[in-house]
């Protein structure tokens, strides 16, 4: 019994010790501590961000930045808790799909006041300014870069199959991928996306097919106001797209999400991959395929020779509950200036937000060349905005992903799929 008391006493003292040590810190000498939380966390990016923050702290000795990097899968939940509790966060990563809900709930500060005199506005690309200022001029976030699709392809396999160059259209892709596919050798044509976010590529295909009639400001709408899913061309798009799955993709790709697709391409088993530019860095590290064996090509076009490039973006914003809004704005300005913005975009393989970066050699050579091609031909590669800010966007993602899988396993026809989607968006817009 005496012994157990001793154990309890030791336990208690350990606990008190921890409590005391944890309470240390917190200063009142005029320095400000900013809590900054990221959402699309990945270790390499966190490193880049930390080094930029260190530069910022060196320039602003009175400001300390504490970077919080939750695992990306849990990040949104955590950020929501922080914002709801109104404490613990000053600067946060805001994405095009979270800005709607966050601002509706009054969690984001409109930074237009703080950033009014910022000299950096002039250096931003048109797209960056457009997304930063929103429709009503409120600045809820400043983008740090853009994501956009391009086609990764295997130069050697395409050549061996007797083709002169990469596919330009979805039809070309079907033809080339089918020719390359040979399951007995574990060689597949296309790294098909059937799992999480399957909808993004399906929609990209549909948009390419209806590009002539597309409302670029809301790329789920046709110019006549109907949904893109109601167009007869949409069914052609789906038929080609699902043929690519049936004839030229690994059967298990029904369940493939991002990591499987990227691995499928970088381990050499698939010849084509439609992905964001961050994949460039991953594929460059591959030991299965060498730099000579792959390259990128512009986004695939529809029958009329056009493609729609959906812009996706994210950036930095300030929490409405922050008590250090001026300092927060200072940090965001710093991160969005020429040098820092370029570093961040290059290190993370993003389409940059500043004009000067787009002119650098980095973005003109190698795998990036296809992005330049797309930028230089805006009439062929339309830059479009999808309704990613809708409050029902995440609901749509889940619904559409699940229904695409239903088509893939034969529970739903493409016709039913389109009909359902047309109804869904028509309803949503009506009730808006």
């Amino acid at each position, binding site marked *: 019994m005496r012994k157990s008391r001793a154990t309890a006493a030791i336990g208690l003292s350990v606990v008190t010790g921890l409590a005391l040590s944890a309470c240390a810190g917190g200063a009142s000498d005029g320095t400000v501590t900013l809590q900054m939380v990221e959402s699309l966390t*990945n270790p390499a990016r966190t490193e880049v961000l930390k080094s930029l923050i260190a530069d910022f702290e060196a320039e602003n000795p009175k400001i300390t930045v504490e970077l919080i990097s939750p695992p990306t*899968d849990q990040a949104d*939940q955590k950020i929501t808790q922080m914002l709801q509790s109104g404490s*613990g966060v000053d600067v946060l990563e805001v994405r095009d799909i979270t800005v709607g809900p966050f601002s509706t709930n009054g969690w984001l500060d409109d930074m237009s006041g703080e950033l009014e005199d910022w000299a950096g506005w002039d250096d931003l690309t048109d797209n960056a300014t457009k997304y930063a200022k929103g429709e009503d001029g409120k600045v809820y976030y400043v983008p740090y870069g853009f994501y956009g699709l391009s086609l990764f392809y295997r130069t050697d396999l395409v050549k061996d199959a007797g083709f002169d160059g990469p596919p330009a259209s979805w039809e070309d892709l079907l033809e080339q991928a089918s020719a390359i596919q040979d399951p007995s050798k574990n060689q597949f044509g296309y790294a098909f996306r059937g799992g999480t976010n399957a909808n993004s590529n399906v929609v990209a295909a549909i948009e390419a097919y209806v590009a002539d009639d597309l409302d670029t400001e809301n790329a789920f709408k046709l110019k006549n106001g109907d949904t893109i899913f109601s167009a007869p061309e949409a069914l052609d798009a789906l038929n080609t797209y699902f043929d690519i799955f049936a004839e030229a993709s690994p059967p298990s790709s029904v369940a493939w999400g991002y990591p499987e697709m990227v691995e499928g391409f970088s381990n050499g088993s698939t010849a084509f991959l439609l992905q964001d530019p961050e994949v460039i860095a991953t594929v460059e590290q591959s030991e299965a395929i060498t730099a000579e064996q792959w390259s990128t090509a512009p986004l695939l076009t529809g029958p009329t020779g056009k493609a729609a490039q959906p812009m996706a973006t994210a950036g930095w914003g300030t929490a409405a509950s922050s008590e250090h809004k001026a300092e927060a704005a200072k940090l965001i300005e710093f991160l969005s200036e020429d040098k820092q913005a370029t570093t961040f975009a290059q290190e993370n393989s993003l389409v940059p937000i500043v004009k000067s970066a787009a002119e650098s050699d980095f973005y003109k050579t190698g795998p990036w060349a296809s992005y330049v091609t797309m930028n230089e031909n805006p009439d062929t590669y339309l830059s479009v905005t999808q309704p990613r800010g809708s409050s029902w966007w995440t609901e749509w993602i889940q619904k559409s992903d699940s229904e695409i899988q239903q088509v893939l396993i034969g529970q739903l026809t493409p016709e039913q799929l389109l009909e359902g989607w047309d109804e869904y968006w028509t309803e949503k817009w009506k009730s808006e």
Partner: protein
Amino acid sequence: MIDKETSRAKAVKFLFLGLWLVITVFPLYWIVVTSFKKPGAIFSYPLTYWPEVFSIENYLGLFAKAQFGTYVVNSLIVATVAAVIATFISMLSAYVLARFEFRSKGAILLAFLATQMIPSFIALGPLYLLMTQLKLVDNRFGLILIYIAVCIPFCTVMLRGFFENIPDALEEAAMIDGCSRFGALFRVLVPVLKPGIVAAFIFNFVNCWNELFLSVTLINSDANKTIPTALNGFITSYNIDWGSMSAAAVLTIIPTMVLFAFASRYIVQGLTAGAVKG
């Protein structure tokens, strides 16, 4: 020993145990092999069951890129302290629930069991607010408090089961000898129950060691992070860093394996000679 095993029974036994060992260990083997492959070689095809080049790059990276040492220390502190305290508290309540009859007993047990049925996300919002008010966000002590609470119900229910397997006569004898209830519990029952208590401690420890959801929500800074948060950090929306993750997983498994190896002696130790001759 009267019931000797026949050699056929023995053969069946070891065949079965051996088969299960292979099934169990294979994924572990796979993680270990992956952790020693060069980052680029992990997805080479055809699959290689042995690294062509042994590389400790993944391990070095863990300590260079992430403060893995800090996470290990944090996890060790949090899981050990929480598991010790939770086991002790649960022992007290389990004892009462096993040895006494009172009207609300069924309700108490059900209330404990019910905690295992509640999805934690429901409680997360209010819990976060509570911890904010207590100034225990981003604090290992705060995490320990919650882990204790999370461990207690299951641990109590489990230990109660073990207590009930022990005849009353044992402690009654002790009490006649002049021990208090408390004394009877610790001098007589605890030694007899060592296997159960050690098992309970291990479960508590492992549950805390692996807990991700609360840890991610309540811990912010690198200095206070625990291993599961760090492990999960290798999954990004773009990629899964298999090399680093396998290396981290191997390092994570080692302490628990050591604990098992150490504790399994107690789990199978059996009753102390003469303890239950009654």
